[in-house]
């Protein structure tokens, strides 16, 4: 338990309304979008400025107390689950867009700024912030930086790391460091690049300098309906292999289409095996030939129909259906777990077959809605959280899917991070030396291991089997 003296000091720094200690209020903070493990912090602090974050971390450093950063809590790997960290530091009151430089196409925003509000702020100027996670209406830039988040349009435009030029970071010691910045090619190691994707283990990101891009002159959105998942995934490979780089290629299988259709009534055929949403953008002159080529490729794979979104409204409706698909899944089962694996794009047909058979074997319903163009799969495992046996099966099936991804030459996470969820899978990808070096890098930023402990790395010596039951106690 934290001392009342500490709580008083936290209140003095962040204000009484910036310190949450009541158990029923803390429940909101007991997990993120990964709900299989839960554990509430003792206190949540909501600073308003970098200076306050620095003061808080100085205090915690002096007292030797561990903490966990939190943005909007939409993470899907348990990244902000408090493990041996009594203090949670939330960025929800750090929402200022500090500056926008329209000519040089840069914005400096605080960590708590919601992803979509960056694009909204520069829309009228013909600009946008490219990384567009499906959760973009809620998730924060700080969370995006921590997870190196992607989104449908990262196929063409790249993920968060390709659009972050600088970071303001408060180290666990309380020291504020400026890494990178608005000017490119800063001499020295690319610490900005190292911090992006570090899952909140290097300190608290308080602000980021973002690159903005120009809105494309034109875009064409195609909806292709397929009889089978196989045909749809094979088409994805065909498009990439043809040297076309669409802005996005997203796939939804029948289970997801049914859920989405029930929720949003877009007009998807619920008897189709799978649909692809393919978006092309760029100069208007370049689009028609590409759309024709893609249509032909779809038809070669027996597409039932390929149609072009009529207008902006229809395009928006299509994207809304896709981006809210996870939410719509809530109608299908009391609980669901979203997995996140990657395979080389040519291996998509194979991994989807494997998922199908894994689902059968574990007697689980699994839907698929994902960033197909990148080979980034998101199988959604449906279950009932109250049934211990089902939870076991979900965990085991999830593990098997990820192992299959690695076997096919891929990775266990494309954008959601390792968090607590995939710690056990790290050794599938990395040697003990790799993991040791990464842990040592972490120590450079956080010598005492007090920033988001228990994430990303397997504890040396401790085998997974022994940590699981302890964790499950928190369910």
């Amino acid at each position, binding site marked *: 338990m934290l001392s009342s003296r500490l709580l008083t000091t936290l209140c003095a720094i962040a204000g009484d309304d910036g310190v949450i200690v009541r158990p029923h209020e803390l429940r909101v903070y007991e997990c993120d979008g990964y709900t299989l493990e839960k554990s509430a912090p003792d206190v949540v602090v909501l600073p308003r400025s970098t200076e306050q974050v620095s003061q808080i971390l100085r205090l915690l450093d002096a007292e030797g107390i561990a903490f966990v950063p939190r943005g909007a809590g939409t993470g899907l790997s348990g990244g902000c689950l408090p493990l041996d960290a009594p203090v949670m530091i939330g960025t929800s009151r750090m929402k200022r867009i500090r500056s926008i430089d329209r000519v040089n196409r840069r914005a400096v925003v605080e960590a708590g700024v919601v992803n979509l509000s960056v694009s909204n702020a520069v829309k009228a100027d013909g600009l946008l912030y490219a990384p567009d996670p499906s959760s973009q209406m809620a998730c924060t830039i700080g969370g995006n930086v921590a997870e190196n988040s992607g989104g449908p349009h990262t196929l063409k435009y790249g993920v968060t*790391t*390709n659009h972050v030029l600088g970071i303001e970071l408060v180290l666990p010691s309380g020291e504020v460091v400026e890494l990178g910045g608005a000017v490119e090619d800063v001499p020295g190691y690319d610490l900005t690049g*190292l911090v992006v994707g570090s899952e909140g283990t290097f300190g608290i990101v308080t602000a980021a300098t973002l690159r903005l891009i120009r809105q494309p002159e034109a875009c064409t959105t195609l909806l292709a309906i397929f009889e089978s998942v196989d045909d749809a995934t094979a088409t994805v490979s065909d498009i990439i292999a043809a040297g076309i780089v669409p802005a996005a290629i997203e796939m939804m299988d029948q289970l997801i289409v049914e859920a989405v259709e029930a929720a949003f009534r877009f007009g998807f055929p619920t008897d189709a095996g799978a649909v692809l949403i393919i978006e092309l953008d760029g100069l208007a002159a370049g689009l028609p030939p590409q759309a024709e080529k893609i249509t032909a490729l779809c038809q070669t794979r027996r597409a039932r129909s390929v149609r072009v979104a009529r207008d902006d409204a229809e395009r928006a409706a299509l994207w809304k259906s896709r981006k809210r698909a996870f939410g719509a899944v809530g109608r299908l089962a009391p609980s669901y777990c979203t997995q996140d694996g990657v395979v080389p794009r040519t291996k998509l047909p194979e991994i989807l077959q494997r998922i199908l058979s894994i689902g059968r074997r574990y007697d689980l319903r699994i839907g698929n809605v994902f960033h197909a163009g990148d080979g980034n799969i998101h199988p959604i495992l449906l279950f009932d959280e109250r049934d211990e046996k089902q939870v076991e099966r979900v965990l085991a099936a999830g593990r098997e899917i990820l192992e299959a991804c690695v076997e096919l030459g891929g990775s266990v996470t494309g954008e959601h991070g390792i968090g607590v969820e995939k710690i056990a899978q790290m050794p599938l990808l990395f040697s003990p030396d790799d993991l040791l070096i990464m842990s040592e890098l972490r120590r450079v930023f956080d010598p005492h291991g007090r920033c988001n402990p228990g994430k990303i790395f397997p504890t040396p010596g401790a085998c997974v089997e022994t940590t699981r039951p302890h964790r499950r106690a928190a369910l």
Partner: protein
Amino acid sequence: MTPQDVGNDRSQIARRLHDALGNGVALYGEATRTFAIDGSAPAAVLYPATVANVRDCLAVASELSLGVVPVGNGTQLHLGHAPRSYDAALSLRSLRRVVAHETADMTVTVEAGCTLAELNARLSTNGQWLPLDPPCPEHTTVGALIATDAWGPSRFSQGKVRDLLIGISAVLADGRLIHGGGRVVKNVAGYDLMKLFTGSFGTLGVITEATFKVRPRPQVSSVLVCESPSMADAVDDAVEIIAAPLAPLYVTALNPTAASFLHLPSAAVCVGIGGSAAEVAVQEQRLQSLRAERSVVRHHGATATRLLNGLRDLPSYNASLGARISLLPTEMAALLRDVEERTQRDQLPTAIVAQVGSGVAHLRCGKRDGDAYDWAALGRWLRQCVAHTGGHVVFDRLPPDARGHLDPWGDAIPGFALMRGIKQKLDPRGILSPGRFVGKL
């Protein structure tokens, strides 16, 4: 020459390295001159034949605290401080296989000693390329490309190494082999070691293998040369072109001296256009009408290639003082105007090549006849002007007498304590490119 000839005090070391090299080769004497840095050559040049050789060599070097500088063909050795100790250059040139080109996945895995030209020749058979166009691709090895974070005009549209590198293997100072990333285009497992090694100047490890995303080559491409009255005008024109509804591959502004090297009559903006025939045609048309009252010359085919290669190689031209300036694009015109004024006043022939959209410019200042010139003063002045706008200057060529007075990287690097911490973790004995990088890491 055999190890025994090197001299008694060294023969022990040479024997150990010789054993570590296995089937690899060690060269001594004259052959080491190619890899001289700031006038001093290493005692030996090592060409390991396998990754195991690299590991064994470094394990020996680490044990004996030998200063080792990883190199490819040694084209970029003028960058950075001279090494604190330089016992051996370790060249990866014998490790040059393309390990896997997954054409349909658009990824390639390649050993570090392969040159960019060799790699792109291989990729082009499938209509693909690694879209990096730094100077001298025939000499630039993949390892050096990553370690020096080399780039060219197309960074404006294609990004830099950091945007394309998806997996890396490197041998650390003590001989341990480590990996980051993987072979898929999207992957967030573990820390991003690719970013850490990119631009690390051989101070953290010896890069042995890399995996990149590759892209389709534009079907058609051309270069449009827009003449401008002066460098500052060329930069302003470039800013206008970047704001126009075009999607250029690069927008490079040249001052009259740089332009003359490419046989162009005046300061100019070179705009690279690429894509499908339709995309190229519409952009050419738009650019012509944007610049209706001024001359625009369109080059295609072999002349376009020659021009692009010239643009690409300009920053590698020898010079008394070479500087790489980075600042915000909007600050560029005024700064470069001042630079031109000053260098003209001082009678220094100076070529300037500016990648305006990225806010980076290369400066090559030539020799001055007759009396001595205070290069350090010029360097300090330049650094001060650029710092004033929030930018940075890295000197990639310095005359010998200025070296002691100008830090090539600049002082006061933000986050330096963290960088030092990283160096200490990965290379605690400081044997890899010792003292070469920022803050003499």
